[in-house]
């Protein structure tokens, strides 16, 4: 029997992206630069998170024409973002035949209580998470890929590190528990017992986990990979820097050879200006994107 849109088919694409870099692009030219630099996929959006942060206002799904333009420009997978809980935007993106939907806190949430029921879709979803419970709730809703949220558009990697350590530390803790302790732990994590038991038995999430939010340098990518990420999303970090092409190539190379400090050192040299950063510790609570979603 032939089946489309099974969980195995959805999470299968994420499996193929592992060890790779997914880059935010706002037009076909940037998408081509990303593809030539070795990106394993691109995220099509109208404004990178750094600009969304500056512009303020409501951030929504991108113009379909813009997404189609990027789909026509590259052969690698094209992802696009919908607002948290905005299942109609997700339906539009599925109709556009995007390869992955990012239900993203970078856009302004459309629903303050509910995320999209991702089981309703044949297109796979990636969702952000700041801790293990949040990651498992998204997977319970049908997410086929998880990314640590970090703090998008800042160039400050500290929140991504916090989230990676929180998720991987939570997994290590589950592995150490007795079977009869997992019931209460599921309650504490506010996550389905079956998923909690699966993680405890397997020592990892049941889907691929990338890092996102604030990655701006090859060493940032290496750091997140060493902390247990399967790959990295780079948003504003590339096309808000002085030499996007060179930086894109460098981050791709550092992600593959993340354990080889000689390689990371070599590709880190002469990259020009990194994106101007915002230390997340200076942001007010209302400016933090990571607290969107629950």
């Amino acid at each position, binding site marked *: 029997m032939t089946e489309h849109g*099974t969980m*195995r088919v959805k999470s299968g694409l994420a499996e*193929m992206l592992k060890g*790779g870099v997914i880059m935010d692009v706002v037009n076909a030219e940037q998408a081509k630069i990303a593809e030539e630099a070795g990106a394993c996929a691109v995220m099509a959006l109208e404004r990178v998170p750094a600009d969304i942060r500056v512009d303020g206002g409501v951030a929504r799904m991108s113009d379909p024409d813009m997404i189609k333009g990027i789909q026509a420009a590259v*052969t*690698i*997978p094209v992802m696009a973002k919908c607002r948290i809980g905005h299942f109609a935007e997700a339906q539009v993106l599925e109709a556009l035949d995007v390869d992955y939907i990012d239900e993203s806190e970078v856009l302004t949430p459309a629903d303050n209580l509910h995320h999209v029921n991702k089981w309703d879709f044949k297109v796979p979803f990636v969702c952000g998470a700041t801790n293990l419970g949040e990651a498992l709730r998204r997977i319970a809703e049908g997410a086929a890929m998880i990314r640590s949220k970090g703090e998008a558009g800042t160039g400050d990697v500290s929140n991504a590190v916090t989230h990676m350590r929180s998720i991987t530390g939570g997994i290590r803790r589950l592995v150490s528990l007795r079977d009869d302790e997992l019931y209460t732990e599921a309650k504490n994590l506010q996550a389905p017992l079956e998923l909690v038991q699966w993680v405890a038995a397997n020592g990892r999430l049941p889907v691929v986990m990338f890092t996102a939010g604030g990655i701006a340098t090859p060493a940032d990518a290496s750091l997140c990979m060493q902390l247990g990420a399967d790959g990295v999303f780079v948003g504003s970090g590339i096309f808000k820097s002085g030499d996007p092409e060179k930086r894109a190539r460098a981050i*791709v*190379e550092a992600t593959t050879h993340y354990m080889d400090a000689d390689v990371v050192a070599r590709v880190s040299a002469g990259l020009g200006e990194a994106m101007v950063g915002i230390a997340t510790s200076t942001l007010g609570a209302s400016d933090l994107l990571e607290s969107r979603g629950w």
Partner: protein
Amino acid sequence: MLRFSLRRRCHAPDTIRQMEPLQIGVLAVQGNFREHAAMLRTLGADVTEVRKPEQLEGLDGLVLPGGESTTFTRLMGLYGLDEAIRSFDRPVFGTCAGMIVLDRSHLGLVDIHVRRNAFGRQLASFETDLDVAGIDGPMRAVFIRAPWIEDAGDGVEILASVDDHPVVARDGRFLVASFHPELTDDTRLHQLFLDAVRAARGVGEPHLRLATGQEVDDVLAQPELRAAGG
């Protein structure tokens, strides 16, 4: 323990080497290398992740996994892995992106032309029951933005097709598949590859004949040896 006692008593180092685990490399510049490695290990192979040319040394076989072929191409070119793979003379198994990079217009090692994303984008990805020549009973085959073989040379043996599009093929020491056997628990295609690797290493079957002319199974059955090993 049994292997150790054989080594000590039989003085047949060449035969013993043939019994040692197969050394299989998995290209690990990007993509689904971890699942291939895990599956190969369950089949008894020793696995090396290959990111640089020198890591090909001493390998009995190589797997090129799924992933993004454009990413592979760039990262292989950076360190001369493309040339190193061209001169690697052992059996090679390529799946999905791994099949693409082996074709005429990439590494040029397999006499096929592969059409990328031939089935379509992710929404067209699917899983199905696939009959593969040489494998008994269908495999559950997962196709992700999968390619197919658009054209194959006369020496290429087509082992499976979907809607008349070839998706599994063998060309001498090369085995290629456009789906992802590593995403299921079905190890049979990997076993088929390892059988080819073992044959290329000079060992036909697990029923080894020792230099003394004895069958290994017979030697292992000797009470004194079992006592020594145990």
